[in-house]
């Protein structure tokens, strides 16, 4: 595999291979020296055309733990603001002989475009509303770590699904396993057509009470220009996961969030800081999972 552009294009076997490799990298992160020499002498560039702190930091740490040399290229400081096209930016970067390109872009399909036009390995760190594959992989890794498996689980994805590339990637990934998926949220934030293996619930309690895993999504304040919800306060009142959920959630249900979370919008502090929440575990697992993805990709020889 040269690139990781989306979960849609990869097989269950490839996903399992990544998760299995991530387990080995997670052990590396527990050592005193949290770094292995595996990719010494190779170079990675993080190309972020959209603001991101945690995904970029997570990738950067993963790269450094693999002994890669790391360059960060973000839009506010780049020549893109001077009018350079994505293609020319890519060709410039290629002249540095980089081996790995991690890209985040506001346009869906940007990662695929870059992957098709370079011999370097390309990892999609989020493209528009299309995919965010490493987030889905780290979510899957975290679920398997706690639940031991994906097959047979009921998973509820709650919130702003139509704008969420995290939800899309998770949907693709979970659909490759024997899972029952429920989208939960207000009609304005749920897609009008869903695959046959997905059910829809417009009621939070009904949607999540049988779930083994509750995945909350961030209300993307920057994508709410279309008045999808009346107010954040009302969203929290109706759709926010709050302490009363403890009374009806399954005893061993876990709560996840890709971050950054908005306390008092998607989630209350009572839930976020409870033992049910594996949000911080997701952050740690993000590094191990991204190390595994980088490790498993192989550059095309030219």
């Amino acid at each position, binding site marked *: 595999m040269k690139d990781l552009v989306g979960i849609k294009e990869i097989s269950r076997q490839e996903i399992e*291979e990544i998760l*299995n*490799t991530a*387990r*080995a990298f*997670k*052990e*590396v992160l527990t*050592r*005193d*020296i949290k*770094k*292995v*020499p*595996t990719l010494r002498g190779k170079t990675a560039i993080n190309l972020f055309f959209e603001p991101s702190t945690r995904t970029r930091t997570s990738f950067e740490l993963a790269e450094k733990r693999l002994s890669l040399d790391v360059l960060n290229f973000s839009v506010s400081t780049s020549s893109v603001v001077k009018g350079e096209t994505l293609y020319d930016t890519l060709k410039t970067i290629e002249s540095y002989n980089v081996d790995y390109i991690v890209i985040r872009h506001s346009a869906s399909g940007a990662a695929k475009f870059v992957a098709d036009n370079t011999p370097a390995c390309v990892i999609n760190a989020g493209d528009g509303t299309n995919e965010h594959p490493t987030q889905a992989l780290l979510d899957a890794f975290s679920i398997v770590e706690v639940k031991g498996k994906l097959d047979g689980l009921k998973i509820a994805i709650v919130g702003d699904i139509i704008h969420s590339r995290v939800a899309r990637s998770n949907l693709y990934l979970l659909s490759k396993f024997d899972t029952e998926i429920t989208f939960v949220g207000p009609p304005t934030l749920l897609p009008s057509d869903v695959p046959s293996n997905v059910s829809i619930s417009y009621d939070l309690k009904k949607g999540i009470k049988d779930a083994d895993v509750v995945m909350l999504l961030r209300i993307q304040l920057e994508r709410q220009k279309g008045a999808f919800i009346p107010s954040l306060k009302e969203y929290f009142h109706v759709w926010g996961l709050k302490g009363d959920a403890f009374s009806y959630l399954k005893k061993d249900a876990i709560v996840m969030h890709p971050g950054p979370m908005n306390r008092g919008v998607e989630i209350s502090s009572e839930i976020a800081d409870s033992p049910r929440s594996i949000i911080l575990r997701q952050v740690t697992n993000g590094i191990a999972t991204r190390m595994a993805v980088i*490790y*498993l990709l*192989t550059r095309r020889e030219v």
Partner: protein
Amino acid sequence: MEKELLNYEEIERILTRITYEILEKNKGTEDICLIGIVTGGVYLAERIRKKIKENEGLNVPMGILDISFYRDDINIKGKKKEIKPTNIPFQIDGKKVVLVDDVLYTGRSTRAAMDALMDFGRPAEIQLAVLIDRGHRELPIMANYTGKYIPTARNEKIKVYLKEISGKDSVVLITQ
């Protein structure tokens, strides 16, 4: 063409001898720990540990080490995809570490294992125990404990079957 070099009884006797050699050289079990290299070395280390227990009445610490992240040939041979998490559940500082592997060949795996160990701490000493030494070293590395030295040609292969994975104990030389 396949030729059996060692059978179950011979492997057992060799491991018994290596166990005694380890105990003799180190004057007992003090500060000794065993680290098996994935995959074959792990089972051999477990057997040696059991034999030490039978003789000395105690379990020495044992860990497992996957050297995939330390290999120097991933650009040539590609990346190994089935990686086992390394597990060294004790401090190796000041310990006498006995690395256990099934076959010693170019010495590059041993080099990788030693580099990995150095990232875990500063052992007092690293020793090497192997079931088979087939020659063709590319690095200045030799074993402290060798089960059997078998001169081979480079195009030959040594296959070690252990009952924990293959259901039988046998070492086979494969000639193409």
